[in-house]
């Protein structure tokens, strides 16, 4: 493995593999723990898991790409979830999303800023339609949004 990963994180991964590696049906818990350690699931980590728990790398890749909870690319320090549910949609969620992209400098296909400060995702419904349009940054909810409010909200997390 390259020098990209901290030695202590690799030791942690090996610890997880030692604890869970020999059990049947262990793949998803191992992937979750590994993602907790590294913040995402780098290829090298998946290969190490494959070798240890003897599940083919192709199958692991299939599982990782199936579940939305797993990430193959590094994630930002802050996770921004922009709601695109029905209520938010009719109250202008598209404009909020466009402003988020503009403020974060993200193109259509990009989700994470180059400085790894923010990752932008869309979600189908956050469950507080009364506050539409709404977004969440990490665990905090921001509602009744207008595009002009976006910069101020993001600045709280910079």
């Amino acid at each position: 493995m390259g020098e990209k990963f901290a030695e202590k994180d690799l030791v942690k991964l090996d610890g997880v593999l030692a604890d869970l590696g020999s059990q049947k049906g262990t793949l998803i818990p191992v992937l979750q723990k590994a993602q907790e350690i590294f913040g995402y699931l780098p290829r090298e980590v998946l290969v190490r898991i494959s070798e240890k728990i003897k599940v083919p790398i192709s199958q692991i890749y299939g599982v990782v790409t199936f579940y939305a909870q797993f990430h193959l690319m590094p994630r930002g320090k802050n996770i921004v979830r922009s709601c695109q549910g029905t209520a938010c949609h009719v109250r202008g969620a598209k404009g909020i999303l466009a402003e988020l992209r503009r403020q974060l400098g993200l193109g259509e296909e990009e989700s994470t800023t180059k400085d790894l400060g923010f990752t932008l995702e869309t979600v189908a419904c956050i469950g507080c339609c009364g506050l539409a349009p709404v977004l969440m940054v990490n665990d905090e909810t921001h509602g009744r949004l207008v595009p002009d409010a976006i910069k101020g909200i993001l600045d709280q997390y910079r």
Partner: protein
Amino acid sequence: MSSVSETTIKMTINGQDVTAPKSYTILQAARLIGLDIPHLCYHPELAREGNCRVCLVEVEGARSLVASCVYPVGEGMKVHTNSPSVMETRKTVVELMLANHPRDCLFCVKNQHCELQQIAADLGIRKVRFQGEKREAKKDESNPSIVRDPEKCILCTRCVRACSERQGLDIFSSVNRGFKSIVEPAFGLGLDEVACSYCGQCTTVCPTAALTEKDDTQLVWDAISDPDKFVVVQTAPSVRIGLGEEFGLKSGSIVTGKMVAALRRLGFDRVFDTDFAADQTIMEEAHELLHRIKTGGVLPMATSCSPGWINFVETMHPEFIPHLSTAKSPQGMFGATVKTYFAERAAIDPAKIVSVSVMPCTAKKWEAKRPQLCDSGFRDVDIVITTREFARMIKQVGLDFMNLPEEDFDSPMGISTGAAQIFGATGGVMEAALRTAYEKYTGKELENLDFIAVRGLDGIKEASVDMGGGVVIKVAVAHTLRNAEKLVQKTLAGEADYHFFEVMACPGGCLGGGGQPYPTDREIRQARIDAIYDADAHMKYRKSHENPAIIELYDTWMGQPLGERAHHLLHTHFTPWGERLK
């Protein structure tokens, strides 16, 4: 209760009484009354998934239509396979597949061999009611053997299962979900970046053109039409056994004479036989085995003719390389011999020779490109086409294959033996090698040439051969890489007491190769095997060392087996592959 009723059930299918084994699925039971329920993801030799939904049928009392390929039969079950709701649903399912499938059937390499096309035709689909977004994905043409075209993929996962269950390589997986679902190697890598052996078994089970052999027929036409080139062709033992199926003959029909006639008419300047080189391989490999035994060399020694197997060792088990026989495959030996020995004899400038081989194998395309295989001073084998591509060439020029005369190979590299003929079957190389090794070792004539214990479709076969004087040679034979892995593990653990083992990467051996006509299943492979041994029994010469052309080659030119010239031209070395994702 009688013992019959304990193991069978009575049911009706479309009102017809059926008695079927309890373990059967509805799809299997329907076959008992001559009813083939349309299906795509189902493959008789692979695990059942029931994911394509084409085989849906109605079971009275069931909540919804069920997939007959996975649904078990039951006592008193009433099944309808042709009811209006089944017919309508089946059609819709296929239409939905077609809605996300390129409609370039006319130009598709699988035209008339495509199972999706066949089902659409059988169901009488005349239009597709659904229009929408289509999957866009890049073709993978990264390697010389296999082309992967994900836009043609219907996500049946037969390739996933074939690669995993037959070869244990697990190259493919279902990736993403919903509309973005795709079957591909990990991280979307090319087949040249993963541990693919290029065996091509995936191409034999793919119902569409999502996985096919790389078509090199144009290269052959170009060579033939070039007046400055002298184009020679070799045909592997298994090609003559499979080729007839492309022209409607039943499996196991051997068409050697017509095949030779067809090659002449396509315009090859000389039509030679890989079987000649198979005899060379036996000369070298049998002597190498005896040499290793006498001098305490690395044992067990393993055969090295199957390029899928070689790729597997070089990628997955480089530490096993010293066990591989250094003898080149017959294709490799032929290539090195034709541009030296034959060129010299026929007074032809080897630079002008284009050496083409027809192989049952997709991995042979890669083998021919190995940097090691240019010992003649040129690329030993220039172009490799599979049995399927060869059939395509015959059709392109409109040859009436069935009415071609029977013709003989050209001399000298067209003369061969029964030992070479059986190279195509699992156990065949072993048997051929034993016939020669026994006689060379003991100096006595073999009373019974048939080593029955190494024949047949068992995954791993073992046998012992008494060489006399207290010496017993222990051998083993494996086909498919999943079985080969077991022999490798046993060897690396120091638990293999064999002297010699044979591996062929494909089920049944080369006759079940990744380049053979569609379809292949166990019955077809067995028919091909029976034909091979029958042909062997009727050959004039049945031992490689009794092939007069081989005797002449060694006496007048090559020298001794394992000698200096043979070492240079007929032996090779193996190297671990660079970084590939395993």
